[in-house]
């Protein structure tokens, strides 16, 4: 187990999760002579977490994943933060980026609120289940699961292209009854693109799983949500991405509340993470059109596999 930053006994106490019924040492037990130094270390800790969060948000938006997949390994492996705190902080950052990016997507009219709201029935249920399970699991199992998630996400990023060869499906009764359809103006062709959902039950099932992974590991789970809409339900990729971003916040809000009431949203970690990821993601979305990100994506996949191995190792060793 890696030690948190040297000399920071109180920071260490903060990085460790307070078990239910446990407590942080009261002020009187803290040697006052050490106060000044720890105050400075505490400030450095806040700034370091903030800087890492900016980097995570930036990197996440450049490679097309959320910040969560970067921030959880960074907090746990670099700072020795308890993984429950890391997941709690990451969930908050998912909400922040979702709310901020939805503002832009709503303006573009790409996001389909009806389809999003309908699928949220599945993701929110999954998220509540995931958050509940995370509270019961020891940290080491979360490391193992996160490692596996990173492997799966790396696989998704490598395969990338969607399977367009499948024959067009008939609209299912659910899609018809709920009018899961829409239209948007394609800027490139200047034409109105109309679409309707197919295979809605499969979409719902994948969405439940995406919600559960989100609640369990504190990620937006766009890596599952976008294929559920784009590949399974045959919605246009742009609509799928925008709607997935819109849904992430609602999904994460369900599990974040569970983490909050469990005491797993630590303000000294979640605060700088929320601000940092938000700033980084905004910055990244402005940089994307000007950068060639294909090379970065390939590099990122390698990094993901290495981090996945590291997290699996830590989990199996007993974090």
């Amino acid at each position, binding site marked *: 187990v890696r030690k948190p930053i040297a000399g920071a006994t109180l920071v260490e106490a903060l990085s460790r999760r307070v078990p239910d019924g446990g407590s942080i040492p*009261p002020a009187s037990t803290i040697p006052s002579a050490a*106060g000044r130094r720890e105050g*400075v270390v505490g*400030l450095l800790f806040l700034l370091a977490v903030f800087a890492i969060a900016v980097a995570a948000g930036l990197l996440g938006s450049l490679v097309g994943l959320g910040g969560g997949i970067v921030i959880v390994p960074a907090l746990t492996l670099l700072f020795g933060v308890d993984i429950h705190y890391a997941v709690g902080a990451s969930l908050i950052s998912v909400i922040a980026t979702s709310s901020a990016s939805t503002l832009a997507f709503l303006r573009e009219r790409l996001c389909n*609120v009806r389809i999003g709201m309908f699928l949220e029935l599945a993701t929110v249920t999954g998220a509540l289940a995931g958050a509940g399970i995370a509270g019961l699991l020891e940290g080491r199992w979360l490391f193992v699961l996160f490692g596996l998630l990173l492997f799966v996400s790396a696989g998704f990023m490598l395969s990338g292209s969607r399977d367009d060869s499948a024959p067009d499906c008939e609209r299912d009764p659910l899609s018809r009854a709920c*009018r899961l359809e829409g239209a948007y103006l394609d800027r490139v062709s200047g034409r109105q693109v109309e679409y309707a959902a197919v295979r809605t039950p499969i979409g719902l099932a994948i969405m439940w799983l995406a919600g559960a992974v989100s609640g369990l590991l504190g990620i937006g789970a766009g890596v599952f949500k976008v294929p559920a809409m784009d590949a399974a339900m045959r919605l246009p990729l742009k609509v799928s991405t925008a709607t997935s971003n819109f849904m992430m916040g609602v999904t994460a809000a369900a599990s974040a509340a569970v983490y*909050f009431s469990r005491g797993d949203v630590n303000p000294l970690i979640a605060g700088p993470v929320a601000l940092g990821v938000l700033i980084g993601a905004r910055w990244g979305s402005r940089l994307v059109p000007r950068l060639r990100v294909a090379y970065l994506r390939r590099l990122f996949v390698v990094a993901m596999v290495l981090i996945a191995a590291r997290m699996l190792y830590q989990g199996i060793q007993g974090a």
Partner: protein
Amino acid sequence: MSARPADRDGSLEAVLRIGLAAGVVLSLVLLLFGFGALLLEPGDPPIDTITRYPADAFPRDLRGVVDGMAQGRPLAFVQGGLLMLIATPLLRVTLAGLVFCRQRDWLFAGVALAVLVLLLWGWRGL
């Protein structure tokens, strides 16, 4: 099948946009105020401040956050900002539900209500 998707008139998006923007701005104000206050605290920021919560490091429910803010504890403001951020999607779902109602789209008003109930189920501990 209806020829016109229900939300094409854009009123849904407009209302959602206002709700979202208001929630995000308010939570950012609370977060920045909390951290600002933490740094301006007399004594050694920010670790000392935490130890003013002897039983618990930080508030973990709505009541604790409100009480802490009333007592001027910087971390309570940070937690308040985070809680506000968690609440923005709730606001978003509520607003969407109201717009569905106004459009007499009862099916989706029901869907929004169901999502809201599920979210509140997650909030029951707060």
